[in-house]
C-alpha cells in the first residue's frame, strides 16, 4: 500500500533543471493539480517532454506562461501562441518530434530498447543529423530513447497500491510515460480500495507508480 501525498509535497522532490514528462493531449488527461503546484513552487529551468503545450491557461500551457520551462520536447505547439512567441524570442528551446516517434521513443526508454527504427521523418527536417539505417533494402531513421527524471501523469482511478486505470482520450501518453521516468507521480481523479480495479482493467501496474496524489480537497 502507498501513502498518498499532496501535490505541494510531491513537487518538492523536483529540483530546478529536472527533466519531466507530463501526460496529456491538448490539456486532456493532464495532471492539473501537479502542474498548479509546480507553477506555484517556482521551480524553473525545466525540460518538459509532452505531446503538446496545450493552450495558454490550461495544463502545460500554465508552465510555459510562468516561464518555468527552458526546453520542450514535443510534437505540436500550434494551439499555444505563447510557446511560439517565447521560442521566436529565443527564451524557450523547442525540439519538435513527430507524435508517433515521440511516444515510441518514450516507450523504448521504458521497455529497455536501444532505439526506434522508423520511416517517419526520413527525408525531412526531422532527419537532420540523425543516423540512417539500411535494412533489407529499406532506409530507416534511428531515433534515440527519451528518458525523464520524473513523469507526472493523470489517471481516472487508482487503487491503494497504485494500479491505474484511464478513461477514453484522457489516456493518451500517460501509460507510456509511466514506463520511462525514474520517479512516477500519478494524480488520479479517484482512489479506490484494492480489488475495485480488476486485473484486466489495469493499464499501469502499481509497480511503476512511485507516488499517488491525494484526493482533491
Amino acid at each position: 500500500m502507498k501513502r498518498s501525498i499532496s501535490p505541494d509535497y510531491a513537487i518538492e522532490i523536483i529540483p530546478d533543471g529536472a527533466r519531466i514528462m507530463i501526460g496529456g493531449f491538448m490539456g486532456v488527461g493532464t495532471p492539473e493539480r501537479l502542474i498548479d503546484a509546480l507553477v506555484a513552487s517556482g521551480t524553473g529551468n525545466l525540460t518538459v517532454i509532452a505531446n503538446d503545450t496545450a493552450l495558454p491557461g490550461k495544463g502545460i500551457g500554465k508552465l510555459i506562461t510562468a516561464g518555468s520551462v527552458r526546453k520542450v520536447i514535443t510534437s505540436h505547439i500550434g494551439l499555444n501562441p505563447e510557446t511560439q512567441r517565447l521560442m521566436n524570442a529565443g527564451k524557450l528551446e523547442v525540439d519538435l518530434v513527430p507524435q508517433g516517434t515521440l511516444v515510441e521513443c518514450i516507450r523504448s526508454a521504458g521497455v529497455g530498447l536501444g532505439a526506434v527504427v522508423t520511416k517517419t521523418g526520413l527525408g525531412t527536417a526531422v532527419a537532420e543529423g540523425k543516423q540512417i539505417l539500411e535494412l533489407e533494402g529499406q532506409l530507416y531513421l534511428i531515433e534515440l530513447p527519451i528518458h525523464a527524471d520524473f513523469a507526472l501523469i493523470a489517471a481516472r482511478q487508482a487503487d491503494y497500491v497504485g494500479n491505474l486505470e484511464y478513461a477514453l482520450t484522457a489516456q493518451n501518453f500517460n501509460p507510456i510515460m509511466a514506463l520511462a521516468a525514474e520517479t512516477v507521480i500519478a494524480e488520479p481523479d479517484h482512489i479506490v480500495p484494492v480489488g475495485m480495479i480488476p486485473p484486466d482493467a489495469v493499464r499501469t501496474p502499481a509497480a511503476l507508480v512511485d507516488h499517488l496524489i491525494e484526493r482533491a480537497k
Partner: protein
Amino acid sequence: MDAKDRIAQRVAQEIVPGSLVNLGIGLPSLVASYVATDQGVYFQSENGVIGLGSRPPEGMEDPDLTDAGGGFVTAVPGAAAIDSAMSFGLIRGGHIDLTVLGALQVDSAGHLANWMIPGMLTPGMGGAMDLATGAKRVIAALQHQTRGQSKIVNRCDLPITSTRQVDLIVTDLAVFDYCDAGLRLIELMPEIGLDEVGSKTQASFVVAL
C-alpha cells in the same frame, strides 16, 4: 456551400464503406459530416479513439472524450479507446485505410508540406508525419490558392512532411492524382474550367479528364 465544404464533400466520396479513416484537424475534419453513418466507416482520432462521433448534446460533453484538437466529441457504438503508442502503432503500421490531411503546399513529386512556415509559423507536425508516411492512402485536401498563390507547386519550398507520395489531391478547383508522367488532373470541380485550373496552378500537370 463554401470552398472548404465543397472540398470536404468531394473527399467524402473517396471513403470506402467499412474503412478506418483518420481526418486531420481543420478542413479535413469537415469530411465526416458528408459520410453516411450506415456505411460502417470508423473515424480514428490520433489522440486515442477509434469510432469518433459527432458533437455531444449540450451539457453532456465529457472532458475526457475529445478530438485531436481538444474539442468535445462523441463516440459511436463499437468504439475503442487506445493509448498513444497503440494509436500510432495503427497509423505507422498501415492499419489506417485512409488519412485526409490539410496542406500548405503539395508538389509534383506528391510531397506534402503542412507543419511549418520558417520564420513565420511553427505549429509542429503533431501526427502528420506518421500519418503521411504510414496510412494506406493519403489524400491532401486544401484550397487551391492562398492569397493568389498556387499551393500546388513544382517543388515545395516549405519543409516537407514526408517523402511518401500522396495518392490524391482535392482542392476547390480540381482533383489530381499521380501517374508515371507525374501530377495528373483527373477531375474539375463543378463550374470550374480547365483554363482556370491551368492559370491558377504553378505545378505542371498532365490532363486526363
